[in-house]
């Protein structure tokens, strides 16, 4: 048994898992009524991924991201995306300044992107040019301006919110941009009970301040534990088969995918699923990723990476519906039973 193949010890995993659970519980306490969403957001943070929240105005997207910024006690910046926002407004710019010696020189003034958590509010209101300014930063955690590449502080998260693209004055994010987000999470309207609780317990809707925050060192420890979560071979194979099956030209693609999907998910999607599944395992206190972890994160990780054709839009098919069908049809294991042998679907 090599060191690389060794599983995490129970005590260190328990400590990390408890920390993550505590942060999640705090998030649930501050923002009412969306534990599933909060759980996925926490998984996204643990996976060091960027998260895109989509929902109508006022449903609490920005509040969630702000709360997360407070909870993580990391450097936090907010950019309100507008149609006239320019890339330089985000990345920064070189400004001509006079030094103490009287010499004038171009000095780089970093933009709001040089932070740990960037809140890109209403990201789809900016023009594609400005949206594309985030591409390098999101993938490579660096910014290149005038031939000079500058590293962004780590960890670096982009937590973006966007209005549904059907709304007026929005620019849909290009596929390359979308692909860089780990999750695209739908923020639905709150339920009646949630609304009642909000208006009865929150004055002016202001959420309470968090009682607890994750220090940078604690977050680093969580990331270290995350990296040590074991991904078994059959689970990795399951992820690969799932992602490969989203390609309509694949032999394992479902009839729905063949009919409605124009382009399938990229390898980055498989990485995203694997990483986020590790986050789920960590929250569950397990040293290994199971099939159920993959199933939990598969749709949020892929629903913005699968490009549907016009027929799907015309017939009201969504990515989530198609991916759900794929999850139900593809077997978890690679047991290739001969025709006539069926495994009961019932699970313990």
């Amino acid at each position, binding site marked *: *048994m090599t060191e690389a*193949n*060794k*599983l995490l*010890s*129970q005590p260190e995993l328990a400590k990390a898992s408890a920390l993550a659970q505590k942060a999640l519980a705090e998030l649930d306490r501050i923002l009412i009524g969306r534990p599933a969403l909060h759980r996925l957001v926490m998984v996204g943070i643990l996976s060091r991924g960027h998260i895109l929240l989509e929902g109508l105005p006022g449903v609490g997207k920005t509040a969630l991201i702000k709360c997360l910024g407070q909870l993580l006690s990391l450097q936090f910046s907010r950019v309100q995306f507008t149609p006239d926002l320019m890339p330089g407004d985000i990345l920064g710019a070189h400004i001509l300044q006079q030094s103490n010696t009287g010499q004038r020189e171009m000095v780089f003034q970093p933009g709001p992107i040089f932070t740990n958590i960037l809140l890109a509010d209403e990201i789809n209101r900016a023009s594609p040019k400005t949206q594309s300014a985030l591409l390098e930063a999101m993938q490579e955690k660096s910014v290149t301006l005038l031939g000079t590449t500058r590293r962004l502080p780590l960890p670096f998260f982009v937590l973006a919110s966007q209005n549904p693209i059907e709304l007026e004055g929005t620019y849909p994010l290009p596929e390359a941009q979308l692909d860089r987000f780990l999750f695209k999470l739908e923020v639905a309207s709150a339920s009646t009970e949630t609304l009642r609780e909000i208006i009865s317990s929150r004055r002016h809707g202001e959420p309470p301040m968090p009682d607890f925050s994750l220090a940078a060192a604690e977050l680093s420890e969580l990331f270290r534990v995350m990296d040590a979560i*074991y*991904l*078994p*071979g*059959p*689970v990795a194979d399951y992820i690969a088969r799932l992602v490969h099956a989203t390609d309509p030209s694949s032999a394992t693609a479902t009839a729905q995918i063949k009919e409605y999907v124009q382009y399938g998910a990229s390898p980055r999607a498989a990485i995203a699923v694997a990483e986020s599944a590790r986050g789920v*395992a960590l929250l*569950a206190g*397990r*040293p*290994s*990723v*199971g*099939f*159920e*972890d993959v199933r939990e994160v598969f749709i949020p990780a892929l629903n913005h990476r699968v490009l549907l054709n016009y027929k799907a839009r015309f017939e009201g098919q969504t990515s989530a519906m198609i991916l759900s069908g794929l999850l139900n049809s593809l077997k*978890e*294991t*690679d*047991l*290739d*039973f*001969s*025709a*006539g*042998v*069926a*495994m*009961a679907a*019932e*699970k*313990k």
Partner: protein
Amino acid sequence: MEPKPQKECFASPELAAAALKSRYFRITLLLCFLRYFTILNFAAGACFLILRQIGHAGDIFSAVFLCGLATATGLAFVAARRQTSEQRGWLAAIDAHNGSGGLLMATEETGDTGWRDRLPGQVEIPVLKPAAGNRYMSAGLSLLFLLLSLTIPVVGRDTRNDPRIELRELERVAAGQIEILAEEGIISPEEARQLNESLERIGLDSQRHDPAATFEALDQLQEKLKKQAGASVVKNLSEQKNLDELAELAEKMGKAAGQNDDQISELARAVSKGLEEAAGDVGIGSGSEKLQRALEKAAAGGPDSAEAAREAAEALQEYIDEQQAKAAAAAAAAAQRLASARLIDRKTFESLKKAGKIRPATEADLQPGSQSELVMCEGGGSESGNGQQGEGQGDGVGGTQTGGQTGSGSENGSGASGQAGRGGGHAPLKFNRKSSEHNVEFKNEVLPAPNEQALEKSVAIGMSFSAPQTSAGSGDDGSQAGAAWQKTSEGSAESGIILPKHRSAVKKYFDHEQ
């Protein structure tokens, strides 16, 4: 409702994986066997149908099928084994089923036992079910096909590859005749064996391209059998004749008692001699001791010879009556069996007729279910027939129909007593009576008008060669045509008529030529 499959739990993941693998192997074995069994059945059924069609099916088929079954089982075993060994991920399936979150797989892959205590204590395995509904149905259908291929009659069987003639029916009849002759003691068991061998040889040596030789051989065999049967009947009749002569002597001896002593002695010696001859020829015993003593006393002459002659005459009469009763019963039974076996030839028939051993058929004999083939007169010809038609003669005697018209004789109408009831006998033709075999009635139908007059007015415009057209017997002349062959001038059944037996031979001959 389908019963819920029982869950199985195991102490360790390894045991659970082994159990799951084993279960998969069993199910796969069943499915593979069903598949190969279905293929085997269809193939075997088709092969057997073809073999039956060309006339080569035999017992070897069972052996070949059993070998095929063993091969199918072996193939299924190998295929199931291969499919099972190729499968990977048994532990993953168990992990997924138990919701272990990858712990089972991770422990297996890394060998790290640090999380053993977090593994489930009892590992369940998923339920594998054979979804073989269609395969069961296919296998059932194939089995049905196989059974049908073994049982359904072959239509239009091509016997071109078989050089022999189909003689089964004829062989069966002949074998039955031989058996009856043997049972009646007419031929010895050794003779019966030889005859059977001859019969078998005829069948084996038969050639489709030369059926005449085979049928000639069969006819000769039949003639031989009939001769044997006839000899037996003649022997019985001879015994009867001897008894009649003895009866005549007894009567004379009785009359001569007290009148002429010399004649008494002479008659007594004649009776003794007749008894001895009868005993030597036909097996009649030499009488009782009382008869012997009376005969000796009468032959010796003297004062008591008249009394002895009367006693001898009485004893002799009793003895003759007894022997006649026995002989009549034996003769009737034997003749009945011989007639049933169609072993009475023309000559024998004449003998029986002359001896008054045949009576005309009655209405009861013609009823459906009647087993009468040749109606014998048990009372020595005392019954009289109706005398409407003559008896069948020649081969018609040995014909196949009861009271039929084949081989009908002359219409002399003499109707002597004890006429034959077969071969177109006296029985009235009633067309409204139901057929004894098929339980159907003749249909009254008006025949079409004759067209000879139209022919007289017709004009010949040409000639062509074609098969002769058979007339349905229309017109005055035509109406007689149907019965004309029955009324041949001599009343003989042998006057150029193709009998059914020979007709089939001729038909087979021409079928072969075609």
